[in-house]
């Protein structure tokens, strides 16, 4: 990260991401329409289901197929597993150590093993849900365009009820725990962008809305958002055309969908000191914990009413066309678009992950945050900036553990 300071003003804050490019959008060209869910899941081992479901939905749209409610619900259940494991990983293993002044959860385990154990219990509940439906927790094998290879039976899912009930208490305790952390007094005014569903907290689909009146379906995404390639970073940056910086992810999702949370999740949020809108990125750890609680509850609700989709996958015949799909990855909106020829060969692929959408907002926050903390020496400032970046749980979350801060002070 590069910061240029003149006097008490920060003139520039640049986050330089040199994650080596892997060219997914290029290597997808020439592949069969059935392949993007498996291939794109390899973009992120922490949120593979988000990639699988966004990809499958985009291809279904290109082929003119709408899956049944039962199918959508089973996808949502699998997705709950991913939210639980990803949020548990971030809250306990990546973010909480920052607030507690320790280097890692492993270090925390020496003084508070029961706390780390609670985090691992939650993470395991999420992973077990993913493995039961998907075959394995990292890069599940059971998802496909149209649905699933095999739908789990009711009895299979009932085996998860007991561990999930344990996770429910652990999740509620987590919200209480993180609610007691000290948060820097820092807020932002970025436009919040998230999916919204008429009936439930948006996870696997919905319309894209904002607190400034945006309200679009997936086919409107590229018209309204533009991806820029800037010299200092290998991650493309997205802006809202004519409006600029915006923010996606848990804070946006929560603030735009508070009314869609369960009563229990809303009560836990209030008790932990959150209002219906949260604009302090440092409190994202509380919001993630509230979402984790919701995801556990939602998984239990879905299992309670579960009927396997029959057949386990809708028939999807290839045709020439273009289709868009999106969903709420744990770290924000994930958009895919595919253009297919009549045989179903992928001609073009576009993938916009949440990290690229948030990069501008992160840089803006860092600039303002550094400006408020110029009295710190570079080492202390580096640590605080690492924490500020981890607020967004970017795909580079762990990479920020070796942030090099280059401060150019003058005047």
């Amino acid at each position, binding site marked *: 990260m590069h910061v240029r300071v003149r006097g008490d003003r920060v003139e520039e804050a640049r986050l330089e991401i*040199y994650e*080596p*490019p*892997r*060219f*997914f*959008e*290029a*290597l997808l*060209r*020439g*592949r*069969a329409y059935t*392949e993007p869910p*498996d*291939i794109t899941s*390899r*973009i*992120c*081992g*922490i949120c*593979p289901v988000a990639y699988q479901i966004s990809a499958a939905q985009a291809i279904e749209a290109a082929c003119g197929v709408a899956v049944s409610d039962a199918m959508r619900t089973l996808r949502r259940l699998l997705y709950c597993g991913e939210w639980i494991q990803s949020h548990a*990983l971030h809250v306990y*293993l990546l973010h909480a*150590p920052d607030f507690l002044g320790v*280097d*890692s*959860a*492993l*270090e925390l*385990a020496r003084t508070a*093993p029961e706390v780390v*154990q609670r985090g*691992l*219990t939650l*993470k*395991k509940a999420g*992973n077990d849900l993913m493995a039961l439906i998907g*075959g*394995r*927790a*990292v*890069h599940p*094998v*059971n998802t*496909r365009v149209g649905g699933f*290879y*095999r739908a789990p039976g009711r009895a299979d899912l009932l085996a998860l009820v007991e561990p999930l009930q344990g996770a429910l208490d652990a999740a509620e305790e987590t919200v209480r725990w993180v609610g007691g952390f000290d948060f820097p007094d820092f807020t932002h005014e970025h436009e919040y962008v998230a999916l919204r569903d008429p009936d439930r907290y948006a996870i696997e689909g919905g319309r894209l809305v904002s607190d400034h009146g945006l309200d679009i379906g997936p086919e409107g995404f590229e018209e309204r958002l533009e991806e*820029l*390639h800037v*010299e200092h970073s*290998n991650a*493309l940056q997205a802006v809202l055309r004519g409006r600029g910086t915006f923010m996606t992810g848990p804070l946006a999702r929560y603030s735009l969908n508070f009314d869609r949370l369960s009563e229990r999740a809303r009560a836990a949020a209030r008790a932990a000191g959150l209002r219906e809108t949260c604009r302090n990125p440092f409190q994202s750890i509380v919001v993630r914990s509230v979402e984790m609680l919701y995801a556990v509850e939602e998984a239990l609700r879905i299992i309670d009413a579960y009927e396997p989709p029959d057949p386990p996958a809708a028939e999807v015949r290839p045709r020439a066309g273009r289709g868009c799909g999106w969903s709420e990855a744990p770290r924000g909106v994930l958009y895919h678009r595919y253009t297919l020829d009549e045989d179903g*060969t992928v*001609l073009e692929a576009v993938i916009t992950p949440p990290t690229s959408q948030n990069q501008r907002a992160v840089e803006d926050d860092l600039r303002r945050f550094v400006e408020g903390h110029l009295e710190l020496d570079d080492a202390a400032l580096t640590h605080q900036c*690492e924490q500020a970046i981890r607020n967004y749980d970017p795909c580079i979350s*762990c*990479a920020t*553990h*070796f942030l090099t801060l280059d401060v150019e002070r003058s005047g």
Partner: protein
Amino acid sequence: MTTATAPKGGGTEAREARPPRLAVWKFSSCDGCQLTLLDCEDELLALTERVEVAHFLEASSAGSEGPYDVSLVEGSITTLEEAERIRDIRERSKLLVAIGACATAGGIQSLRNFADVGTYARWVYAHPEYLETLPTATRIADHVTVDLELRGCPIDKGQLLELIGALLGGRRPWLPGVSVCQECKRRGTACLMVAQGVPCLGPVTHAGCGAICPAWGRGCYGCFGPAESANVASLARWWRDYLNVDAATVERALRSFNAAAPAFAVPDVDGSGRSRGTEAGRGR
């Protein structure tokens, strides 16, 4: 596998009982293999009592310079910086284990090896000139000596624990190079290819996943890479003759997460002598 000897720079230190130092490294990859270590929820805390986690960015800000007793390396080499960094890590590691398809065969990003990376860059980025990248994605063993490999995209948790347990116990890990077919037999899954006519890479794919895909009713897609003495040409002929699978589909099946593994080179089953090694099927 190298036998256990005193760590570099450790005379008296080596004789004292200190926990072995474990380091986890990431190159071009998705983080899923190193996440598998954190997914050992039931074993993780017990494990950290037996080993010192000396470098693991996904789990800790703290890190030591080494030397390390064991380095687990995830990802493939796609930049010059990575090529230099892996040599440095090798120098500081007594035992180096490549984990996952990227580290052992280049991973999905090695599809660039069969295409032109300049074209790839233009398709994805407005300013390809900003990028610093190599024309190929290569496995760790192409750059430094690798002592052990764990296969898979991602690796299997059970195999990872077997590896760590074996290293702690000073024995060789049990990681048989047989095919996925043997795991189906052990699991009691009826052969999908014989019984249902589903194309399956199981006969040529390295075991280790527990034959998950066939158990879920889909053909193996080869994410553990080639088994020992895999006969890919024979399987490709079988697919063609008995399952009516066309050559383009065979090629796509082999060109995935372990595309750059030599044993998964696309065989010339139609006897035309035409090489399917470079252009075909790409960039249409």
